[in-house]
């Protein structure tokens, strides 16, 4: 498990709070509730307990602000909420492909008749066998990466989804830098240059930035307390059968730290 610097700070704060409670109450009754695992999430509980303990004993301990648990390098699982379409609105994770000369905002997009949405420009993504995107390590495609008819087989991040009649899959290429995502005051950035799509026997880098450093990095948001995130990026396809097309990726879900 990788313990990040913010997590360490929070642990110190938690133990400090625990010591304060012990000193104030002179009792060990709350020990089981306030001993957190070494993850960020229980730290919030500990902060809440601090307030309760202060109330019970009328000791004037100031109410602490909820601490930002998800800050700095986020190493772990960015779980993927399966995309859905309801009343014309797309919720959750999806993919779009912009035709050459278009823009991610306005298209034109490639319509995917296999889309579950009324607006077939959206291809919904469903959670994969790993639960989503893992940072800090790679989720390589299987070898071979395709079945006999060119369907992509990588299924760890998102489940293969039919796109243009053939299964479209995603993985992170282990020969590139392992994915990293960093949170700064609720804003996400990072390096997803290893992100790769597999379709119709073709392999398409869909990284952000691209492995050569060109292109924009992913952007997104995260709730510092709950880990609910949204991250999106665009990636121009360079070379191959879709040379000049641009992939638009949008993932939503909840982050959980490794370990």
């Amino acid at each position, binding site marked *: 498990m990788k313990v990040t610097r913010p997590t360490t700070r929070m642990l110190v704060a938690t133990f400090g709070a625990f010591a304060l409670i012990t000193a104030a109450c002179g009792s060990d009754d709350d020990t089981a509730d306030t001993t957190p695992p070494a993850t960020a999430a229980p730290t919030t509980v500990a902060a809440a307990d601090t307030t309760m303990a202060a109330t019970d004993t009328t000791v004037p301990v100031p109410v602490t602000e909820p601490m930002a648990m998800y800050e700095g390098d986020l190493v772990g699982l960015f779980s993927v909420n399966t995309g859905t379409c309801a009343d014309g609105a797309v919720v959750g994770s999806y993919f779009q492909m912009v*035709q*050459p000369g278009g823009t991610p905002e306005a298209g034109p997009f*490639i*319509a*995917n*008749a*296999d889309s579950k949405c009324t607006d077939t420009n959206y291809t919904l993504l469903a959670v994969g066998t790993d639960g989503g995107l893992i940072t800090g390590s790679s989720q390589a495609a299987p070898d071979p990466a*395709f079945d006999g*008819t*060119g*369907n992509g087989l990588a299924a760890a991040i998102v489940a293969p989804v039919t796109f*243009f*009649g*053939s299964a479209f899959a995603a993985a992170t290429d282990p020969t590139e830098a392992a994915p990293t995502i960093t949170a700064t005051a609720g804003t996400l950035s990072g390096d997803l240059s290893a992100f790769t799509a597999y*379709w*119709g*026997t*073709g392999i398409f880098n869909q990284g952000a930035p691209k492995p050569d450093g060109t292109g924009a990095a992913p952007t997104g948001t995260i709730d510092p307390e709950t880990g609910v995130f949204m991250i999106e990026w665009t990636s121009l396809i360079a*070379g*191959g*059968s*879709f*040379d*000049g*097309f641009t992939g638009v990726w949008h993932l939503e879900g909840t982050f959980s730290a490794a370990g």
Partner: protein
Amino acid sequence: MTRRVQRWTATTALVVGIGLAAAPFAFQMFSRAPLGGTMIDDFEPYMVEQKIDSFRGYMNTIDAAVTEIDGVRSAMVDNGTITPDAFDAQYSGVLQLVNDWATINADMTDLLDRMDANMGNYAAVAALPPFPMFPWFFVLPGVMVAGVALSILWSLRDGAAPRRRLWALAALGVAIIAAPVAFQMFTRAPKGGEMIDSFRPMMTRERVQNVQRHFVTLGGAEGQLRVTLMPAYAAASGDPAAAEGITEFSTEWPTIVSEFNPMIATMSDNIDNFQAVDALPSFALFPWFFAIPGAIVAAAAAIALRSSTSPTQLSEKEPS
């Protein structure tokens, strides 16, 4: 007189040798020739009759499907399931295929025809020595000719008789003439030129982007046929099984994708390679780039040898 002829021969050979050695640099062959080799390698899977035939088969499959679409539309309109305008709006992807099919078919068939017509030319070029070696075929003999020529000039300065070196020069000249003959370049290189000329219209960014658009049209239509139109046709009491062409199109589509996708990728990824090769001098000229310099060197050496007498006589007649 003899020494003057020998000096003239050596000087001529030196110029030819330097010219040969410099040619690859002038033509940027060190960067362009390997790109040509990459292109030849990448096209290998597609330059076989069986592959071209399978692509033609896919075009026939799609053609049959497109032909049936009008019947499906008419049936649904005639039985009141949908109005013509609503059909065209609801199945716009299918309509686009119907409207564009003649263009797509002509364009794709032209590509296949060009590839088919150049099977023999491709085989001839592929049988040439590896492209990355091409520049060295100029540099190495050029350096050798220049080196021998320099040694002749040097020996003449010292008053020595360069008869053996003249023989070496003559042999080099003959070898340079023989090289294109040995590699059958007089027959193969012009075929390479024909292939380059034939591929030129299809190996452009614009043409590849057209093919990409065709692919998008085909994929969009196939999906709409399979996911929405044919189920709607069945619901409207149509018989999808009777539309064998459409059924076959959808059945074969994943295979078509997996076959066409890498071919389009090969075209797209080799545009720069093709342009690099196209920027080289015409393939048909290549054997003459060896034969002419080789003939000049051999002829000059022969003249010098013929005009010279024995080394002893030479030394006696023309002391330094």
